[in-house]
């Protein structure tokens, strides 16, 4: 299996966008080497602004640049954009619905060695509760590239979530990308697995395991958390016996709760959530942490069997 960084998809798209549109600017807060925005800086030094270690000013200043007609991509780690600069995301960007793109890397438990201080498992919840905010969590390198283009091509604030590590390349999610439109990767009638972000690969592996046990499995990849593709969710609720959600994020506030809310209000069916429990992470290897915190295909299978049995 090929592995590639989702943040590289972001960085590649930024350079492509830089060549197409001179209104595209990139900002970073002293993590340009880690977010890979230094690659944009190398090509467009005059359209790159390193704000130093000041995420709050970066996001409000990005709002100022958007007011002047630019398309700023403000980049930092997920935990800093949402937790450190949550007010600026809310008051400077979301409230006036400005055309700022917040591209964040190092999200989820797979940050690895840096530990809980840097492992952003809450950011989807924080971003999706902001009115006007579009929230996209791409599944692999190529989808990250496509999502970044899509974000640039829409008017309004977007939160783009990427990881630190290299993650499996999943050809099933390549091709087209439409914000707010989930991708049905497999059709099935017994149970639905809804994934977001890098857990799409685990979702597909889980589906294979379940199919080998004789179950018909639908896999829906929900790359956009907001606006949520409620039709795809309700179709799954109507046509299969239940839903397992899978995300590299807390089970609180993220995809799982979003899906459960839609289903409970419109067409109740069993929902099981795979995600980080209500706990902080710790240091470790990226891959071993995904095992330790229960974010693997066997965890999805286990939850699915709970519904199916």
């Amino acid at each position, binding site marked *: 299996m090929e592995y590639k960084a989702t943040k590289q998809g972001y960085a590649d798209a930024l350079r492509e966008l830089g060549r197409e549109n001179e209104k595209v*600017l990139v900002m970073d807060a002293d993590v340009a080497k880690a977010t890979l925005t230094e690659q944009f800086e190398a090509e467009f030094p005059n359209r790159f*602004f390193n*704000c*130093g270690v*000041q995420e*709050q*000013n970066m*996001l*409000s*200043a*990005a*709002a*100022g*640049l958007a*007011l*002047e*007609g*630019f398309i700023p991509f403000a980049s930092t780690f997920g935990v800093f954009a949402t937790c450190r600069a949550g*007010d*600026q995301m809310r*008051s*400077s960007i979301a*409230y*006036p*619905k400005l055309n700022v793109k917040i591209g964040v890397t190092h999200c989820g438990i797979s940050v690895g060695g840096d530990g809980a201080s840097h492992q952003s498992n809450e950011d989807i919840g924080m971003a999706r509760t902001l009115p006007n905010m579009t929230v996209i969590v791409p599944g692999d390198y190529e989808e990250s590239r496509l999502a970044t283009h899509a974000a640039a091509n829409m008017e309004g604030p977007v939160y783009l979530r990427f990881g630190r590590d290299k993650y499996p390349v999943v050809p099933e999610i390549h091709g087209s990308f439409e914000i707010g439109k989930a991708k049905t990767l497999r059709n099935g009638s017994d149970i639905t697995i809804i994934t977001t972000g890098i857990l799409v690969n685990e979702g597909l592996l889980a589906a294979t395991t379940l199919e080998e046990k004789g179950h018909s499995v639908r896999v829906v990849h929900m790359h956009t958390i907001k606006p949520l593709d409620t039709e795809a969710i309700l179709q799954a609720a109507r046509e299969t016996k239940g839903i397992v959600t899978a995300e590299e994020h807390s089970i609180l506030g993220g995809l799982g709760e979003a899906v459960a809310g839609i289903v409970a209000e419109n067409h109740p069916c069993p929902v099981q959530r795979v995600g980080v429990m209500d706990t902080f992470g710790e240091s470790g290897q990226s891959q071993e942490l995904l095992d330790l915190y229960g974010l693997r295909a066997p965890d999805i299978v286990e939850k699915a069997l709970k519904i199916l049995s």
Partner: protein
Amino acid sequence: MLNKEEHEILKAKAKDIRREIVTMVHRANSGHVGGSLGAADIITALYYHIMQHDPKNPEWEDRDRFILSKGHCTPVIYAALADCGYFPKEDLLEFRRPGSHLQGHPYQPKTPGIDACTGTLGIGISTGVGMALGAKLKKQEHYHYILCGDGEIQEGQVWEAAAFANKYKLDNVIGFVDRNYLQTDGYSEKVMPMDPLAPKWESFGWKVFEIDGHNFEEIIDTIEKAKNEKQPVMIIANTTKGKGVSFMEGEAEWHGKPPAKEHFDKAMLELT
């Protein structure tokens, strides 16, 4: 330099604005009267003498920008914008009411003449320096006037913005600290000391002027000087909170307390 006639006009305008402030907050029974009254002379000088702006064309690309970083003082800016003709004066009756574009804190998408959303403290100056950087990129020559509260500058973000303006040599930024030494919880040097203030801004790479924020000549002459500087400028404007209404002057309790009927009548008598 102001001639006598110009000076009289500004004085009269400032009084009109103060009347509107007291009326707006009284009618809404909500809002920030003290800080609005204190900033009325600076706002008057900016909107009626200094700034290049066009109420008929609020989005004019080359207009000077104004950012009310101390976003709670909407009454003073709404009064000035309405009087300039950005929107009908009747709209002021709806201040802080459901459905009104005149929100408690400035909402740029809906209110003509408001250049940025503010309200949580510190974000306005950051948005302002971002706009100023944008203007540099577009090779525009207008100025960005940013009014900060002296309580507001206790926010760390203000100093992030200060460093940023220095890095990008934003000589198109002219800020004010409305130095009235009072904030919600009382005397600002007791709540959180910020003096000596001028050296703080200077050490961040800003040119600092200190003025009487109620003296039109000083305000205007200093801004004209500020325009010639090749660095961002902060004007520390010494003001009196509640200025113009004797019983509100220098009283922290009038930071966020609306005047009831009795106080309203008394205030209006003083402002006629």
